[in-house]
């Protein structure tokens, strides 16, 4: 009973902080060619994939770790990490859920993502990624009927090499920056989605990432291709156990939208943020980039960032097709000793391209939050338009909120407008709410939700409810 009580107490702040006791298969520690060959081998990858990885690794050896970001972190020893870790039971791929290790099923049930047929979330197809492998993907038959491919990327490499070959690395090339290149060399699993021409995906696709093993870096890779005239909405959720060490998560996400296609990508990121004194937590260094390749295409990023010790990511849109649209909606919340440096890049290349950036940052406790963004209108992007709004809310005078936008306009027929404000919750608003019988915590919750509403509205229903709750929980104890 005592132990149980202890567990409950320790999980009060971060309810996903439990770990699953499961036997793992690991790659040898460290980063070298042999490890990359090991990963490639265990995934039974074709030759070209291994070449891709090795090329990236060659490049990686030449790169220097960047250090221009605001949140500094102690040096990561890349040789002291495991680059592959998977539950032993996954060595021989289970054919169906019945063969799946019950411990894994239990884990996902605890996380609120039941994988079994009868309990599945309605209308959402889930790809569950556990450490370095995808353990299950739901609703596959249903999706296949529409010609949609939704599977772990390692499976796609084997079954749909023509698509993977064509698009993998086309948005984030292997010569990109440090962490992206590292990912290209050692990525383990992730999701792959292909929506054929003219198909509107009948349900939300979703991936749930879980880090379990300690001392492991998670490097997943997601590739989504929306063919001409198609539509897809994709969700991503993440959690990790509570550990005193910092763990690295360096994912690459590539989106490609062809003519008239639309991709909506939503993230609720709730990695373990570390304890009250800033010990432990995930380093979330993610590269997300979408390419509006075709005419009239649209990519929209929505993110709710509440977890991670350090969040460092800039989901971006390259608006290459004429009339393409990029959107970025973000809520980032930092509390205690969390740090975030996040924002977006909108690269306007095509004519009549439009982008919109709405960013809301809330910092409390001893945390530090930076919005960093780039709007670049090239000389060919005639008649383009950007609107940016970044608002920050500060709670207490031990935290920081920063805004660093870069605005480049090389086209006289395009307009760029940028607005940013920083303030605190006004006494009047608090007073008004309290007068009407709300406690100060409730009042703050209400005001913060109002502050975030513009972004929360962009999330799919099920996610929005969850995210709203998360916003409340993340700020608990930061008032008064």
């Amino acid at each position, binding site marked *: 009973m005592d132990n149980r009580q202890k567990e409950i107490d320790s999980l009060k702040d971060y309810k996903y902080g439990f770990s699953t006791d499961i036997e793992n298969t690991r790659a040898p520690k460290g980063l070298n060619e042999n490890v990359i060959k090991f990963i490639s081998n265990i995934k039974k990858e074709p030759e070209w994939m291994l070449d891709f990885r090795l090329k990236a690794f060659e490049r990686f050896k030449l790169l220097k770790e960047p250090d221009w970001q605001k949140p500094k972190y102690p040096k990561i020893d890349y040789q002291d990490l495991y680059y592959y870790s998977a539950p032993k039971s996954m060595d021989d791929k289970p054919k169906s859920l019945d063969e799946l290790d019950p411990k894994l099923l239990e884990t996902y049930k605890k996380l609120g993502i039941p994988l079994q047929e009868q309990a599945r979330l309605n209308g959402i197809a889930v790809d569950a990624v556990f450490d370095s492998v995808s353990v299950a993907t739901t609703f596959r038959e249903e999706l296949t009927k529409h010609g949609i491919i939704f599977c772990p990327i390692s499976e796609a490499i084997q079954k749909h090499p023509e698509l993977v070959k064509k698009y993998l690395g086309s948005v984030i090339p292997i010569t990109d920056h440090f962490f992206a290149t590292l990912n290209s060399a050692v990525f383990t699993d992730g999701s792959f989605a292909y929506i054929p021409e003219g198909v509107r995906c009948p349900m939300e696709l979703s991936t749930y990432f879980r880090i379990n093993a300690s001392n492991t870096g998670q490097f997943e890779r997601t590739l989504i291709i929306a063919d001409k005239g198609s539509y897809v909405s994709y969700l991503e959720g993440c959690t990790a156990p509570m550990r005193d060490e910092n763990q690295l998560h360096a994912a690459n996400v590539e989106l490609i939208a062809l003519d008239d296609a639309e991709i909506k990508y939503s993230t609720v990121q709730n990695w373990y943020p570390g304890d009250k004194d800033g010990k432990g937590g995930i380093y979330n260094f993610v590269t997300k980039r979408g390419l509006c390749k075709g005419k009239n295409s649209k990519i929209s990023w929505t993110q709710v960032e509440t977890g991670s010790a350090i969040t460092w990511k800039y989901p971006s849109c390259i608006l290459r097709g004429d009339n393409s649209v990029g959107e970025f909606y973000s809520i980032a919340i930092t509390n205690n000793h969390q740090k975030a440096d996040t924002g977006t890049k909108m690269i306007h290349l095509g004519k009549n391209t439009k982008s919109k950036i709405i960013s809301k940052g809330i910092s409390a406790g001893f945390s530090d939050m930076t919005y960093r963004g780039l709007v670049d209108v090239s000389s060919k992007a005639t008649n383009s338009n950007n609107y940016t709004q970044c608002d920050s809310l500060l709670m207490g005078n031990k935290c920081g909120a920063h805004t660093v936008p870069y*605005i480049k*306009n090389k086209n*006289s*027929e395009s307009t760029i407008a940028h*607005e940013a404000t920083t303030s605190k919750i006004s006494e009047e608003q608090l007073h008004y709410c309290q007068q009407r019988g709300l406690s100060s915590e409730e009042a703050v919750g209400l005001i913060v939700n109002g502050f975030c509403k513009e972004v929360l509205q962009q999330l799919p229903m099920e996610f929005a409810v969850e995210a709203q709750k998360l916003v409340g929980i993340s700020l608990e104890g930061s008032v008064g």
Partner: protein
Amino acid sequence: MKEQLQKDFNNIIKDFSLSQKDIEIKKFFLDNFINRGFPNKKEEDWKFSDLNQIIRKNIGELSFYSDYKSTNKVDTSIFVDGLEHNKIVFINGRIEKIDFDYEKKDQIEIIDQSETINEFNNNSLSDLNNAFTNKSFKILVKEGYQLAKPLIVYHTTNTKIWSKNINLRLDFELNKNSSLRIVDLFNDTSEKNFLNIFYNFELKENAILKNYKIDKFENKNIKYSFNNIDQEKNSISETFILSSGSNFVKNEINCNLKGKYSSAFVNGILSLNNDKHHEIRSIINHLTENTKSYQLIKSVLENSSKAAYQGKIFVNSKAQKTDGYQLSKAILLNKDSEFNAKPELEIYADDVKCSHGSASGSLNEDSIFYLMSRGLSYQQSRELLINGFLLDVVEKITDSEIKNLIKNLIGIKE
């Protein structure tokens, strides 16, 4: 460049009788500069303007030695008419004249301070300035004295110099309740020189400083100007920048609001044509409670000109009740013109009101249509709109005498 620097430095040292210690200090800064070279775009603060490139492209090899032993004749025709004023005249970087004729002599002190070193900026240009500045003065305004007439600092260069680097430095100390108006007027007939100017202002309680920097006359020089302003309680600083004439200019304003209720205003116009490239960078440090800053920068860009604005509002955790505002707007008139901005907020206090805005685009076609439908030609409508756009900034000038002077200079009609 290294050999040239060493050689010119040795000549400079020969010309001036400096103590061994001062030579050591200057040597230290020279070595610093040799190590770092001119700033390039790898440095965050120079991202939008790669000075190293610009100097290489426009000037080529620079020389750093100027013969300051012989005097230059002051051409009085450059003096501003119709406005009584005090004068400091620089010709090719040499101080030729300091005159405070209109003021009480015992209220102003002019201190020769060749040996002191400025350390308020950590870029390599400050090293260069420290190594080569020969003679620098400190102008001290005594407690309670408010200068009757404005001070105009004439920065004149003539055809005697070519491919030269010129380093200037002036210090000002405004004591309690004093006030000073300074107009920096650039007048160049020289070409292809690099001017490196450092000003340092110390504002004591209730002091008021108004600084107007006018670079209007067409010339092919490259300029860097750095203002450091330290402000104590209740002091006010107003900086106005008209950036238009030179090939390249970067104005930097670094303002430290150290005393309660101190405030800083920075307003600027970047009006560029041809392939000029100008930048304004401002850093306002709110270091204590109840300080205020306001910035308004407007750019009008023709041909293939390029403007950049980097503005930063920093608020530390003690600076509650800060009010910081920053707005930059740009009109791009040509498809080859370019505007870059980086308006930055760095805030560590919660009870603050800080905002910034930035907008860039073309002239509003609807407004042009409106004016043309009332009988104006396209050209007239365009001029009217641009005038109105810029007048907004000129109207922010609080001194009416100087406002008129500047309006005349730019040719803005009301």
